[in-house]
């Protein structure tokens, strides 16, 4: 059964659903326009003309459409769909969900090396691609909650997954009567419209709000897991570590904690439609993190410090050419880095809201300490083994 058609001549998006009795044009007129000017003038913007006129007729049709999908038995609240399940955060969400007894379905892009670890844990994997909206509807059948932690890969244009894909997903969720939608955004995304990813996230938040879906938006600061590859591993391998002299502070948080808090939030009906921000216990600068890693690893790092000004300059340079636009988008965070921002929020209220003890949230010191003690022990074992098998010619 072909469930839905999407005619998407960029930049205008239109949603059509062939199953619903009448064509479901999404009430909100969201347009995305990529203005390609010249030189410094260039900036592509996501225009969110968020006219919140969810007409009664329109939503009624949507209800009808939703009713068509699920005649009879209600969807169980334990059926969830995780979008972006192979990512750093996504995999923790999946594990947590499985452990708490949810039936987890993972929306994964078709790829040559399938995400076997998800199946090994007991999740169901379905293949779909957010950038191909016609693949989405079939994956949503029988789903109660969507947890969306997908972000485009760095090498592909931000627009396809993070905006067009998300819009299609949200529209589809609405049309199929999904009962809750959890969206991960970035902290301070409303304050930095010059960064494309942040602007897209902010617009998606707005889009979600206007879609009248039952939703929770969770804004995140930074993942501790990312620091391992960025600093810890190079320091252990005595490779050069690249850091900036940016004064920005980021309150890193363990993705396992994020996953835990997320599920507490999902089950709390009072939080519907709320915006939550999760931040770690303390905000760190790059230099502080490197110093901490050095101390725990017991060796000095070979640090290459790149001044933020160079990053900014490179960004300006790459913006000039059209073929380097994606690169420029990726470097856009340098604008944020150079501003003296602190990526952190006081969490006391959030903890109260969720009923969580702040002691249960892992600190960066503890996290890295665990990591280093584990890995140093492992290295020791390996060395002891290799000594026995060394053969000299």
């Amino acid at each position, binding site marked *: 059964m072909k469930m839905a058609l999407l005619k998407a001549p960029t930049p205008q998006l239109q949603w059509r659903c062939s199953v619903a009795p009448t064509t479901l044009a999404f009430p909100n007129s969201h347009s995305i326009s990529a203005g390609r000017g010249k030189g410094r003038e260039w900036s592509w913007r996501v225009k969110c003309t968020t006219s919140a006129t969810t007409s009664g007729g329109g939503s009624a049709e949507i209800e009808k459409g939703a009713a068509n999908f699920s005649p009879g038995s209600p969807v169980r*609240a*334990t059926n969830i769909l995780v979008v972006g399940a192979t*990512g*750093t955060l996504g*995999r923790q969400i999946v*594990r947590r969900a*499985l*452990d*708490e*007894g*949810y*039936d987890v379905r993972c929306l994964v892009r078709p790829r040559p*090396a399938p995400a*076997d670890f998800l*199946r*090994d*844990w*007991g999740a*169901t994997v379905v293949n779909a691609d957010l950038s191909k909206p016609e693949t989405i509807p079939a994956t949503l059948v029988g789903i109660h909650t969507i947890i969306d932690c997908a*972000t485009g*890969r*760095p090498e592909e244009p931000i627009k396809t997954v993070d905006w067009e894909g998300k819009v299609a997903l949200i529209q589809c969720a609405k049309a199929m009567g999904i009962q809750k939608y959890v969206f991960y955004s*970035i902290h301070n995304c409303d304050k930095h419209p010059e960064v494309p990813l942040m602007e897209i996230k902010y617009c998606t938040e707005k889009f979600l709000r206007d879609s009248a879906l039952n939703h929770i938006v969770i804004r*995140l*600061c*930074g*993942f501790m*897991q*990312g620091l*391992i*590859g*960025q600093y810890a*591993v190079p320091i252990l*391998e005595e490779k050069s570590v*690249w*850091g*900036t002299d940016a004064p920005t502070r*980021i309150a*890193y948080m363990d993705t*396992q904690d994020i996953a835990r808090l997320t*599920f507490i939030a999902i*089950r709390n009906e009072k939080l519907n439609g709320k915006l939550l921000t999760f931040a770690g216990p303390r905000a760190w600068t790059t230099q502080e993190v490197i110093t901490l890693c050095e101390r725990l690893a017991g060796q000095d790092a070979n640090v290459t410090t*790149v001044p933020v000004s160079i*990053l900014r300059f490179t*960004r300006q340079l790459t913006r000039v050419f059209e073929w380097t636009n994606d*690169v420029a988008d*990726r*470097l856009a*965070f*340098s604008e944020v*880095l150079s501003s003296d921002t602190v*990526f952190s929020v006081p969490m006391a209220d959030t903890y109260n809201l969720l009923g969580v003890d702040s002691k*249960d949230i892992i600190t960066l010191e503890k996290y890295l300490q*665990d*990591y280093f003690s*584990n*890995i140093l022990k*492992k290295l020791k074992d390996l060395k002891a083994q290799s000594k026995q098998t060394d053969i*000299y*010619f």
Partner: protein
Amino acid sequence: MNAAAASATVANSSFYSQTQCRLSSDLRGSIPFSKVKRFLFLNDVHPRKSGLVLVPRAADGKDSNEGGDEVEKQQRVMQQPPVSLSLDDVNPVGLGRRSRQLFDEVWRKFSGLGQISRTIRSDDQEALDALLVREGPMCEFAIPGAQNTTVLVVGATSRIGRIVVRKLMLRGYSVKALVRRADQEVVDLLPRSVEIVVGDVGDPTTVKAAVEGCNKIIYCATARSAITGDLFRVDHRGVYNLTKAFQDHNNKLAQSRAGKSSKSKLLISKFKSESSLHGWEVRQGTYFQDVLATKYDGGMDAKFEFTENGDAVFSGYVFNRGGYVELSKKLSLPLGYTLDRYEGLVLSVGGNGRSYVLILEAGPSADPSQSRLYFSRISTKVGFCRVRVPFSSFRPVKPDDPVLDPFLVHTLTIRFEPRRQKPVEVNATMQQDLRSFKLILEYIKALPTGQETDFVLVSCSGLGIEPSRREQVLKAKRAGEDSLRRSGLGYTIVRPGPLQEEPGGQRALIFDQGNRISQGISCADVADICVKALHDTTARNKSFDVCYEYIAEDGRELYELVAHLPDKANNYLTPALSVLEKNT
């Protein structure tokens, strides 16, 4: 070195022709000859240079290795790569690729600086590996010892079973799943690395194959209907078959280690011949020392003999008020064996279903005056049965004495006293005289101790079953529980309240014994208890009810209920179970 030089020249000449071709095709031969020659010269230097690099390494090899053959071999080995390397070095495509890789790497790091948090790239193998170390076996879920443990989940597709399987997988166990049919639907439902065994719990042969190689069993299968046949097959017979197959499997392992395995029972007495009665001594006595009482007594008598049928029979009567007869033996264990490594006694007995008192005398063997007495009451059935008596059920005769230390036990006594005999139901019409008894002894063994539970059984508390069927369902479930308790395996019996399909870990739980709970519980919480119980010493040999926390009604809060909130950080099971009775 000759070979090296030769091959280098060959490589060179081939390269020469290659460059010539390229040059001529690319630039249509418009390059002056001198230029080409200079280019060639430059290239010419290169292999020689790498040859020079090679020499000290080869010399090194010569120094450290004396064998001539080996040196030659080594030279060949050492000489080959530099030559091909030299080709690679000058290959413009390779050079281009390498420089691009180098640039990419630098660029990636550079642009990575502009990110707030990085995602894992598929090509970022090192980072991924490091993350797997962090997330994989050493993640929050991992349990030490899980890697070497294979768990058989019976009823892996049931509401609880599905979650149990996932939890086990997340914690790094090897999982076997016993399912009735291996349809595509079933296969899709289970994680891929689960070993699927097709079989029915009602069929002993398939069950035997299922327990092969398993260390622990979680039984969460339940009858699909309330038809008596189904109930009997799954809830009663199924548990029996599993325990039997598992014990057989353990025994097979124990046998292969000639009875020295930690799973072997220790034989204390086997009554198979006349001579085996040696050392057992029949005594009689009375609880009342005053002479007055004996006036109306009809006396008592008892004997222990080996009959023609090959049975060792202890029989007799006690008509005295407060009188008793007993059979006693000083234990002589094989050298190197002590009872503290055992958990209790198992007696295989037959007879007319009286109850007896088992008495252990413990104390330093050198000084009999310091011996202390410990007793435990056992009841038998009409016909043969096996009775398990854990050491923990023995109480001191004098209340002030310390608890029994099995290490010090030196004498075992079986006592019959006419008091507190329950009339046997089966022969109620025959009006038996409860003061006479007959006990056929087959063997007495000590049960090996174990730290952990071997068999987790999910039973039910009886709540939420429609009243007309409740009796039947409970009867089958209780029969299953009994067969597990008698099996000698370390067991944990979980009796959850009515199951609810919702996520676990949300509400506090109540662990209780004695059919007092009144609430439901989520399937995920039951699954979590099952998985936690596998390695929890306090869970061994316990049966308990569990449900969500509730407020007790007025006047009924006679007992203290300890609520425990399940969470990853705290181990709620140990404190909850440590207050509960063992061997229930």
